[in-house]
């Protein structure tokens, strides 16, 4: 199939605006009479509010209002209504909003915060999801039983577990009994920040006639609208949410964060816009954080390396409120076996309330947490069996005819993880770089049927609060000369979009009077380039040159078609499908209008290159411009009216998971990939240099190669941070010790490895031009690829992210290697 625009690396449509600074973001917007809000945040992680006196703050210069949670009508939440937009009587994490000062300028608002008096009665604090899941842990939502929740969410009454998903297939007891080798370990992925360039911000006006208008830096204007409507009891037609350009989302601006809070605040100053833009430090504690998962993973393997069974328990940190994390729990549960066919499965994923900021969507959405376990496990198993990490993956890989953890059978159009693995291995130097260990570790392990266990990781307590012991590297290879050692590692992945079965996407295409088109979608351009890719899809579908296609840059719930939210790597796929449907409808309207004018049956007409023409006699045509301006005949009689195409897409045939077995058709499509790393470890300092990161991904048809590569590079580097340097540190009182970039380190330009993105293009039947999602996938298994490379280089096994220089030195000392 040859395409005109699809498949081309066209320059992004918003590029010049963004590099010149002309692009408008929320904080660039200033409205007449605008007030400024600053938030007083709880300094206690778990406490009852026993007193709250704002009278002195009210008297400070410039202060217009001080808003508290008093009078909030109801709890909010899309899955579980377990939160108020600001604290009512009780705080559950450090950073939870307790009061908001609204003043004429931000300085006045900030300085008035100090005059608010709050008294607390402290409650016991727990920040670790595993500890919080134990009986006797401090109860964070004692009344969770009465919360309103969607069907399919299974809390454990009397505990902090707000959702538990089980995935069961076959009989794991038999599989583990018959296994040649059993490997069991615990893996920890700490909580991380998204570190969006643009902080969260919004401007809200509560109208004196009722209703609200909000500008927000959000991935989810329709979710925001819905939640505000529920909170304030307004109909959707009275709440307008406008999203200008967004400077990075990564899931941290999906669902809702500060918007319901600001809507509640604006309610108190009708007629005056109120702006709230967070500081970097507030983003850490005042929005959502990502990940935070303990995975206890047991694999049963045959002598020839076939996975016979997996038993896994996942404890995902939900933080103080679990609403945003419910579906992350589901995602982790259904993807815990990675891109492999496993006949016997027993996975339980728990979402656990703790006293940290709430966990929300974060690029990868449950998949990186469990792939960290699954893909480290594969290398450890390979080492135990004396098998190549490549071979064991290829042997177990999902593919056409195979069945995934939730019982879905893979079709040939679903993609090829085996090809991805081979491409990464070739790019890293070929299979000979991944030979089985010549000296497989047999000392501590009896290679006999009947259950062999590696030392499980002692459970990390208090999250990252205290250093955790690393298990000694059982497969230690003798230390080379002190200095630098290199290693290569791979990890493979499968990721599906996790979405409601009715996640809708709409598109509207207006024919403009120059014969070009204006495309409206509800998808947010947040740097990922989706508006460029969607324009390419529209241009292809309408046979127009790309210059004739515009995508409206602002999303406005008053005008833009509905979009569930810009998440789940589903925009190219779902909104692209909506655009193709809209384009088909527009072409249909064009040919029907032209049929009247040209006196040719509509079926004989086609829309090509800015014209509508007779297939049989192409010299008979109208330009789209002629039609769009309102075609008139010789007498001046109008023969055409404005032409607008609309497209509406919803994924087909999805269903809920079975509550007992976790089986069901919940995933609309899958993207398979493999990622590889080459690292250099300085054995004296423990410092890791990531030399190369290679990703091969079966994304189906690549719509825009340079943007697709950019997405993969960005995701890989973001995940490299989680692998070697990132992680939120909580102290015993639940305070974040590294809320700013001073002590939360993200990779910088000096850390950049050589990056490579390779594409396998198995066309996806359900995708536009065969395309699949790719935005998050590059972030899914970089940490295990890097840790596997470190294992090859040093013989040290790591179970605990990030793998820092300190941990490498500690593990070496424990093993007894002189530095």
């Amino acid at each position: 199939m040859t395409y005109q625009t699809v498949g081309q690396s066209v320059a992004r449509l918003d590029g010049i605006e963004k590099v010149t600074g002309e692009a408008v973001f929320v904080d660039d917007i200033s409205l007449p009479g605008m007030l400024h809000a600053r938030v007083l945040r709880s300094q206690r992680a778990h406490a009852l509010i026993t007193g709250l006196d704002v009278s002195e703050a009210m008297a400070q210069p410039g202060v217009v209002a001080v808003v508290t949670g008093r009078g909030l009508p109801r709890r909010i939440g899309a899955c579980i209504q377990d939160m108020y937009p600001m604290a009512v009587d009780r705080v559950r994490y450090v950073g939870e909003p307790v009061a908001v000062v609204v003043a004429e300028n931000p300085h006045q608002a900030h300085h008035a915060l100090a005059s608010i008096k709050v008294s607390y009665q402290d409650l016991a604090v727990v920040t670790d999801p595993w500890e919080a899941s134990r009986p006797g842990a401090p109860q964070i939502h004692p009344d969770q039983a009465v919360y309103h929740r969607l069907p399919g969410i299974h809390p454990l009454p009397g505990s902090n577990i707000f959702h538990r998903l089980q995935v069961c297939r076959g009989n794991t007891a038999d599989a583990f009994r018959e296994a040649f080798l059993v490997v069991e370990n615990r893996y920890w992925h700490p909580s991380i920040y998204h570190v969006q360039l643009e902080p969260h911000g919004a401007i809200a006006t509560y109208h004196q006639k009722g209703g609200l208008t909000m500008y927000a830096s959000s991935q989810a204007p329709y979710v925001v609208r819905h939640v505000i409507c529920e909170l304030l009891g307004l109909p959707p037609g009275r709440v307008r949410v406008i999203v200008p350009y967004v400077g990075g989302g990564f899931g941290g601006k999906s669902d809702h964060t500060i918007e319901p809070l600001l809507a509640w605040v604006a309610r108190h100053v009708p007629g005056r816009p109120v702006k709230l833009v967070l500081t970097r430090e507030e983003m850490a504690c005042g929005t959502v954080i990502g990940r935070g998962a303990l995975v206890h993973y047991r694999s049963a393997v045959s002598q020839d390396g076939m996975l016979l069974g997996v038993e896994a328990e996942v404890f995902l940190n939900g933080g103080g409120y679990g609403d945003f994390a419910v579906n992350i729990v589901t995602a982790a549960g259904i993807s815990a076996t990675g891109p492999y066919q496993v006949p016997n499965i027993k996975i339980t994923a728990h979402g656990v309330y703790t006293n940290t900021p709430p966990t929300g969507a974060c690029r990868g959405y449950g998949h990186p947490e469990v792939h960290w376990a699954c893909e480290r496990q594969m290398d450890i198993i390979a080492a135990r069996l004396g098998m190549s990490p490549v071979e064991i993956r290829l042997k177990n890989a999902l593919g056409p005819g195979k069945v995934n953890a939730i019982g879905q059978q893979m079709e040939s159009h679903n993609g090829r993880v085996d090809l991805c693995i081979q491409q990464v291995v070739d790019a890293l130097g070929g299979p000979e770089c991944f030979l089985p260990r010549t000296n497989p570790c047999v000392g501590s392990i009896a290679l006999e049927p009947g259950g062999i266990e590696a030392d499980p990781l002692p459970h990390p307590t208090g999250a990252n609060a205290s250093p955790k012991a690393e298990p000694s590297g059982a497969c230690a290879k003798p230390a080379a000369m002190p200095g630098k050692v290199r290693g290569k590692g791979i990890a493979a992945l499968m990721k599906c979009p996790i979405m409601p079965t009715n996640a809708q996407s709409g598109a509207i295409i207006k024919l403009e009077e120059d014969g070009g088109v204006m495309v409206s979608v509800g998808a947010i351009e947040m740097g990922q380039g989706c508006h460029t890719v969607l324009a390419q899809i529209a241009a292809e579908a309408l046979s127009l040159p790309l210059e004739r296609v515009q995508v409206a840059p602002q999303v406005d719930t008053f005008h833009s078609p509905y979009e569930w939210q810009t998440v789940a790597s589903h925009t190219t796929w779902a909104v692209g499908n909506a655009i193709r449907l809209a384009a088909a409808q527009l072409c249909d309207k064009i040919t029907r209008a032209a049929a009247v004018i040209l006196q040719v049956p509509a079926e004989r007409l086609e829309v090509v290159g800015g014209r509508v023409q007779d297939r049989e006699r192409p010299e008979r045509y109208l330009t789209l411009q002629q039609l769009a301006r309102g075609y008139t005949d010789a007498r001046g009689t109008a023969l055409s009216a404005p032409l607008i195409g609309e497209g509406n897409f919803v994924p087909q045939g999805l269903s809920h998971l079975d509550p007992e077995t976790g089986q069901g058709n919940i995933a609309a499509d899958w993207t398979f990939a493999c990622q590889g790393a080459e690292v250099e470890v300085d054995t004296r300092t423990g410092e890791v240099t990531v030399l190369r990161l290679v990703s091969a991904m079966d994304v189906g048809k690549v719509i825009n190669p340079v943007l697709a590569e950019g997405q993969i590079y960005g995701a890989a580097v973001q995940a490299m941070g989680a692998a070697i340097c990132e992680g939120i540190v909580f102290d015993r009182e639940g305070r974040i010790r590294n809320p700013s970039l001073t002590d939360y380190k993200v990779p910088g330009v000096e850390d950049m490895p050589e990056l490579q993105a390779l594409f396998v293009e198995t066309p996806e039947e359900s995708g536009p031009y065969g395309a699949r999602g790719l935005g998050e996938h590059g972030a899914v298994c970089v940490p295990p690829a890097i840790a596997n490379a470190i294992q090859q280089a040093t013989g040290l096994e790591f179970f605990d992210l990030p793998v820092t220089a300190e941990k490498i030195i500690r593990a070496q000392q424990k093993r007894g290697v002189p530095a």
Partner: protein
Amino acid sequence: MMPLHMEYVKPGGLAEAVSLLRQDDACALAGGTDVVVQMREGKLRPRLVVDIKGLAELQGITGQSGGVWVGALVTMAEIVKSPLLQAYRAVVQGAGCMGCCEIRHRATIGGNVGNASPSGDAAVPLLVFHPQVVIHGPGGQRHLPLANFFRGAGKTVLQPGELIKGFLLPPPPAFSLYMRHTRVKGMDLAGVSLAAAIDRQGQVTVSMGAVAPTPTRFPQVEELLSGRPLSWEVIAQAAEVLSAAITPRATSLRATPAYKKEMAKVFLHTALSRALEEGFGQ
């Protein structure tokens, strides 16, 4: 958030600067890479900010009786490029790794020393060159060795009205080196750092950052290593002494005490191996 009520003055000369800095809650502003950050965080709440950037007396790098005069307002970027300072390699390395390119063009050596951070990337290597700090104040000018300048984390001997005019570096040593551990390769504060120098008489000087409240020299280690050929035995012994001598605080997020103690050994070993490779210390 910046303080609500704050005055800003840019004095025309040194005398005016000194009289302004004598006022209560006055604070000198040079590159601003520490002061502005601390003001934003509310750790510093000056009522008067005295912008000393324009003071000519605090500028410049000039040769002076075999040594070098470095004005307090000299930026990290200027240090990196200065031909006169190349012989003081450790400080060039320290200045070259601080912050990022933009920060290195703002941050000054006087600011880095005056801020008295335990891990200052210019302060730690500067120590091994035995510089004199030249202080200007209401009572005129005074000199003191840099090692005596620090009084604690963020604390110095500077009195109200005093400011650092510059540094007098004696003739350069034969060898010097600075190294540090950071969590990422780019912009980070040193988790632990070490500078070492060997002069033509074989006198060794060693300083470390982020292991004590101030950048610190280690006379017992220097004594062990000085005035004799460096053997592997001596180096190993000195590394143990250095490691035992430091008592880093346990609460740092940048490196644990155990790691710092290990790196004290590794860094000293690396620095002295490098000296031997380059033909010094025999």
